[in-house]
């Protein structure tokens, strides 16, 4: 996750940019779009990876029962043609007929039953359990009708079925398992995989027999994906014409590439939210953040707009909610704390800290953002002992309740439902630094009600209390840059998923 951005990178980018003499030549004649990944994808089998690259491959190679239109957020059938709730915990699907997997195996109810029953079992080791552990099992009604049983009421089921839950071929998967699927993936999706060098190189080919899916038909014949860890090398490949598209490009580099005139730079927001987590429950021992006035002071101390304008740039926005604004239930009518350092000092004085105090402050990514936040806090008298840790190390400290203050981010796994964020952190789980019973009870209702109005009502209650009490200091949303040659036409979506099926040649 950590990208290498440093003065070094900026310097090299400048050198690279100054050196460009050759026009970029796309591989359009042969119909191959060359793309770079930064991170080594561990396994294409989407149930056994937890990376953004994995989501990209999942959407290209497999299909879910349902599809969410990324622009309208409307749900339409994909491998299913219709669905209905039989009761609070049973969903019935009518399946699309005539769909075949890339290996020729026909798609029917057996595949759904097999996939659901396989992934729902904890011992099968699906990496992100939250994506699948709400399902109990599936049963076949007839060849093209299937029922999915839920463990308990779970209204976000439709969102999950349109996202991370995709359908696998039963006979093939039973035979090859996750490691076989990772090397020779087989799905129903718009692209079939022709070659895999684990972590390094993936070749895709348009599925000419793709069904009439709401994803649309693939236009670009071949996709060639190479893992190039260094962003500067990616840029060099782009200049020399051997890459057509790069993404997750740091803001400064993207701005310079945009000025060159031969590349399209598209900026889109992502679902990732950056926030300060404070130990209001006092898990790390007696600390100032157990005092509401101190938490409010922290909220007033930070100039969110300046962070967005100067550092994040692009489509990033200021947020005051502990969730992404487009998520269902993430109501925006909450207490907002304007930037007011004087008020912050007054609040600190009122709380009994007229001269401020000193606290440990942790972060795991985006050091420059964390340092800016640090200086805002210092400015009102909160002296920070700043510590930059690896993600897993910080997470461990956090789970043990040893972190008084930290800069954290959460991407909600691109799930467009508030439960994917608020409910992750405020329901007394190991990462909950608040432990408020009332909030937990409201979230329980909101997470499990099948009545949308009731869900909104209870998320509102929870979010109001969370912001009133200033449990967190939510700050901003992230954005990402996509850079591609002028031969490529593509409009990125706000969910940070690269969709090959939506790409065309100009």
């Amino acid at each position, binding site marked *: *996750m950590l990208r290498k951005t440093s003065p*070094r990178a900026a310097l*090299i980018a400048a*050198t*690279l940019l100054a*050196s*460009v*003499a*050759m026009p970029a030549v796309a591989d359009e004649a042969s119909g191959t779009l060359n793309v770079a990944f930064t991170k*080594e994808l*561990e*396994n294409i089998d989407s149930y*056994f990876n*937890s*990376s953004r690259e994995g989501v990209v491959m999942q959407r290209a190679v497999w299909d879910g029962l349902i599809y969410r239109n990324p622009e309208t957020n409307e749900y339409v059938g994909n491998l299913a043609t219709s669905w209905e709730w039989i009761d609070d915990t049973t969903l019935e699907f009518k399946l699309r007929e005539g769909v075949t997997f890339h290996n020729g195996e026909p798609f029917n109810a057996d595949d759904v039953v097999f996939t659901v029953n396989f992934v729902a079992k*904890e*011992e099968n*080791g699906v*990496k*992100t*359990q*939250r994506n699948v552990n709400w399902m109990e099992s599936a049963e076949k009604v007839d060849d093209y009708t299937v029922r999915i049983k839920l463990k308990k009421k779970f209204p976000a089921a439709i969102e999950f079925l349109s996202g991370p839950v995709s359908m696998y071929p039963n006979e093939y998967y039973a035979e090859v398992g*996750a*490691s076989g699927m*990772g090397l020779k993936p087989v799905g129903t999706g718009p692209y079939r995989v022709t070659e895999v060098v*684990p*972590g*390094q190189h993936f070749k895709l080919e348009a599925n000419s027999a793709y069904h009439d899916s709401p994803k649309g038909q693939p236009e670009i014949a071949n996709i060639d994906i*190479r*893992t*190039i*860890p*260094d962003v*500067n*090398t990616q840029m*060099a*490949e782009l*200049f*020399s014409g*051997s890459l057509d598209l790069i993404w997750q490009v740091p803001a400064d580099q993207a701005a310079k590439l945009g000025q060159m005139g031969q590349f399209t730079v598209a900026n889109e927001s992502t679902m990732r939210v950056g926030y300060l987590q404070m130990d209001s429950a006092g898990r790390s021992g007696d600390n100032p953040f157990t005092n509401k006035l101190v938490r409010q002071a922290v909220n007033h101390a930070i100039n969110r707009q300046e962070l967005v304008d100067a550092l994040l740039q692009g489509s990033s926005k200021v947020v005051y909610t502990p969730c992404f604004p487009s998520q269902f239930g993430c109501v925006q009518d909450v207490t907002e704390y304007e930037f007011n350092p004087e008020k912050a000092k007054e609040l600190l004085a009122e709380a009994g800290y007229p001269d401020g105090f000193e606290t440990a402050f942790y972060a795991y990514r985006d050091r420059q953002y964390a340092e800016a936040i640090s200086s805002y806090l210092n400015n009102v008298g909160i002296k920070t002992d700043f510590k930059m840790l*690896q*993600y*897993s*190390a910080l*997470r*461990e400290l956090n*789970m043990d309740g040893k972190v008084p203050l930290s800069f954290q981010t959460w*991407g909600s*796994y691109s799930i467009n439902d508030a439960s994917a964020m608020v409910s*992750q952190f405020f329901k007394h*789980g*190991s*990462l909950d630094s608040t432990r408020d019973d009332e909030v937990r009870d409201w979230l329980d209702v909101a997470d499990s009600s099948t009545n949308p109005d009731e869900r909104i009502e209870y998320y509102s209650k929870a979010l109001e209390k969370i912001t009133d009490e200033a449990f967190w200091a939510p700050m901003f949303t992230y954005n990402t840059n996509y850079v591609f040659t002028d031969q490529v036409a593509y409009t990125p979506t706000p969910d940070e998923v690269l969709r090959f099926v939506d790409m065309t040649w100009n």
Partner: protein
Amino acid sequence: MLTFILKRLGLAVLVAITVSFISFSLLFLSGDPAAALAGETASGEDIEAIRRLYGFDRPMLVQYGEWLFSALRGDFGESYYFKLPVASLIADRLQVTMLLGLCGILFALLTAVPLGVAAAIRPNSIIDRLALFLSVAGQAMPSFWFGLILIVVLAIQLGWLPPSGASTWRHFVMPTIVLGYYAMPAIMRLTRAGMLDVLESDFIRTARAKGAGETRVLFKHALRNAIIPVVSLAAVQMGFMLGGSIVVESVFALHGAGFLAWESIARNDLPTVQALILVFSMFYIIFTFLADVLNAWLDPRMRSA
């Protein structure tokens, strides 16, 4: 000689086991492997499930013993990250690294030794100054920077070579230069110093006095003696290149064993890191051993040692 070799081999095994135990403990201390494995999107419950699944809740010594026992039978387990057998994963990545290391050390020797000899023949001449300049530049220039400069010039501006990748021999030209250049200065300075030293010694004067040709004096008499420390150094450099070409592999997107090790540490992929450390330490041991044998062949006095 046989006892000598057996002793050395026994020592090598002990060193390898010690190294593997230390690295295992350090990895264990550095963080919760379950949290790292679960990834950024996982919940606390996901992590608990993984901890149980992989048995991370057991004592470290038990886990190390289990690893060692399997490793001794040649079973290095499955990579936590890639879900593939570690042995095949490493075998695959080592090909690139070994090819690169071999090319790099050859490049370094073929440029450094002639330059070092030339510099020693005419100390303080233009050639000596040039060699000095090259070696200072080589030591001072970070390899990622040199690599990117080469990409800018040779790949983008001139279009002679592909910027990154590993599919043809042309992809290896720039990485070889960068890696070799990094190892070159030390070899060259050592050759120069050794030659200067030897050229002033009595037996060289004797050789010249008895009428031996200058070429014969330089290469048969002088270089053979001056090269002995260079051989040891090159062996160590070779070991370093196999394990330490991380930056070069990253810049040129080569996906070799060095890069794999670096990434695996960040990913807490214990089985992969353990196996790689074992492989790298074996390389060091083998290369120093080979260097001793080679030195013994070059210098008969060393055979009795």
